[in-house]
């Protein structure tokens, strides 16, 4: 059988983290608000209004471009993309077409096997978001549609990659890396559940070794990175089967249906693609003046790659730990805030607590880092208590759980619950003697050189001490008592 490869380009829309919309002073962040409360004459397209560009949106867009090593256009132009749809009150969307503000960048990221991959960024342009349509209320289908313009006019950038992605795992890694870069640069929170990051995928297949592209389809409705991966896998199989069966593929837009795990053609949209772009006479050209760009550049926060190297160097953490901690800017910030109170010497213990306990809890309860009930300095001091020998790592887990529930500081809980580790030699010796007496068989085995038998005795000491005996001390005292 012939070998095929997947050729993918991704188009990612990202909401810029501004306080106001792109061309009017309406507040953004209306997710979940009452419909049509964040609207004004401009973003509802009333006659005679004029758009005025938001400086912060432009600067965040520039940050994205600089972080993705793009070339900034000296002058870029806003254009009208014309089409009729009820979510678009002006019957055109203000976007950029022939002269986008950024072109020719690249994003480098690590793949699962440890190799690194570089994907070109074809272009980035700015545009305004459309409104939201409602076709049903709850499960009740309406005989009309309802329009909410709260989201209309929200600033977006669209980041178009070159078709240089060669598999669904690469696409997945690209999206994660892109998200991290944009979050670290403060461009966007990239919260996919709130629609702050959306992705369309262009995919074609070709025989390995072939340099020409096959016929591509564009897949829409991909609202999670997992959906992107699944949809690409499905579409790859579908296209390969079609080619193998001698069918001719057509260029089309397809919709991903996550419930059915399949893509479906949406032919209805095909003929509408005649947008008649032209420069918007209501807006002046945008000039990326050198002095302005250098100011934006100097205000650019540290990116994930630089952050990772710094964490490895400053805290002597493994590259795996740093990879995890810098997968999300909020997580990296939390770590550094916690490390400031744990001290660098406890950073490893802190990183362990974060990658196991904290992330475990965050994933299980689906909370945001910002909503974690444990303050970062509190977690830092918990790590320090472990390293000082006050708590065993097992007790630290119990204290962590209590801190999560009560929002209180580790020291208070340790004192109140009498949880601190017992390192008093006299007391631990008493427990050890009792445990050896009760486990005579295991004691003989240890003496005979079967090291693993010691586990039974350690377990008995832990039971007697209710988990509070210092494990290192327990081990030493057992060995001493058994003369080995």
């Amino acid at each position, binding site marked *: 059988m012939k070998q095929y490869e997947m050729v993918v380009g991704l188009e990612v829309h990202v909401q810029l983290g*501004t*306080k106001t919309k792109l061309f009017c002073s309406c507040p953004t962040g209306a997710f979940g608000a009452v419909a049509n409360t964040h609207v004004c004459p401009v973003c509802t397209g009333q006659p005679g209004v004029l758009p005025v560009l*938001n*400086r912060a949106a432009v600067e965040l867009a520039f940050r994205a471009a600089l972080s993705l090593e793009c070339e900034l256009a000296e*002058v870029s132009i806003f254009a009208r993309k014309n089409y009729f749809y009820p979510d678009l009150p002006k019957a055109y969307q203000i976007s950029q077409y022939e002269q986008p503000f950024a072109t020719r960048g690249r994003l480098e990221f690590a793949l699962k096997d440890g190799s690194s991959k570089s994907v070109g960024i074809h272009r980035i342009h700015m545009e305004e978001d459309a409104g939201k349509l409602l076709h049903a209320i709850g499960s009740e289908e309406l005989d*009309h549609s309802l329009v909410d313009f709260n989201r209309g006019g929200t600033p977006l950038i669209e980041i178009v990659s070159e078709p240089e992605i060669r598999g669904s795992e690469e696409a997945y890694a690209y999206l994660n890396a892109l998200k991290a870069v944009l979050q670290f640069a403060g461009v966007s929170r990239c919260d996919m559940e709130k629609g702050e990051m959306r992705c369309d995928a262009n995919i074609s297949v070709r025989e390995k070794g072939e340099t020409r592209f096959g016929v591509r389809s564009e897949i829409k409705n991909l609202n999670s990175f997992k959906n992107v991966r699944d949809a690409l896998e499905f579409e790859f199989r579908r296209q390969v089967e079609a080619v193998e069966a001698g069918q001719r593929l057509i260029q089309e837009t397809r919709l991903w249906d996550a419930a059915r795990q399949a893509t479906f053609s949406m032919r209805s949209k095909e003929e509408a693609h005649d947008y008649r772009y032209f420069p918007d006479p209501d807006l*002046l050209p945008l000039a990326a*003046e050198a002095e302005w760009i250098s100011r934006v550049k100097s205000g650019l926060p540290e990116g994930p790659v630089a952050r990772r190297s710094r964490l490895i160097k400053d805290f002597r953490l493994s590259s795996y730990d740093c990879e995890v901690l810098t997968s999300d800017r909020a997580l990296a910030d939390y770590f550094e805030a916690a490390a400031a109170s744990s001290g660098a010497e406890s950073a490893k213990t802190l990183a362990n607590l974060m990658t196991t306990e904290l992330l475990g809890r965050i994933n299980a309860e689906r909370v945001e880092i910002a909503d974690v009930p444990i303050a970062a300095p509190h977690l830092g001091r918990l790590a320090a208590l472990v390293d000082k020998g006050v708590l065993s790592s097992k007790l630290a887990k119990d204290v962590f759980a209590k801190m999560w529930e009560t929002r209180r500081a580790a020291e208070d809980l340790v004192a109140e619950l009498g949880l601190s580790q017992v390192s008093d030699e006299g007391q631990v010796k008493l427990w050890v003697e009792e445990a050896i007496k009760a486990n005579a068989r295991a004691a003989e085995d240890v003496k005979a050189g079967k090291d693993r038998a010691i586990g039974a005795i350690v377990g008995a000491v832990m039971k007697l001490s209710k988990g509070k005996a210092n494990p290192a001390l327990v081990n030493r005292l057992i060995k001493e008592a058994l003369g080995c």
Partner: protein
Amino acid sequence: MAIEEEDVRKIAKLARLDLGPEEIKLFQSQLVKILDSMAELSALDTDKVPPTNSVLGAVNRLREDEPKPFGEPERLLDNAPEREGPYFKVPKVIE
């Protein structure tokens, strides 16, 4: 410059105009004339002339990112042909 009736129909459809057969013929002949006179401009050598995107010569008219809520959304809703609660109401559109 050739413009077929089919082109006029397509342009009309994109502009949501409902034209009768007489109108299609009328606009076809008018569009041909418009394109013919535009074609005269093509005789000029514009290779070294940058495209005109704006005639004002100014750039970068920006506003600061400070929220100023409009405060009267009701007036906007009342401007619409139809509303339902806080929504604008439109004929059913299928995704």
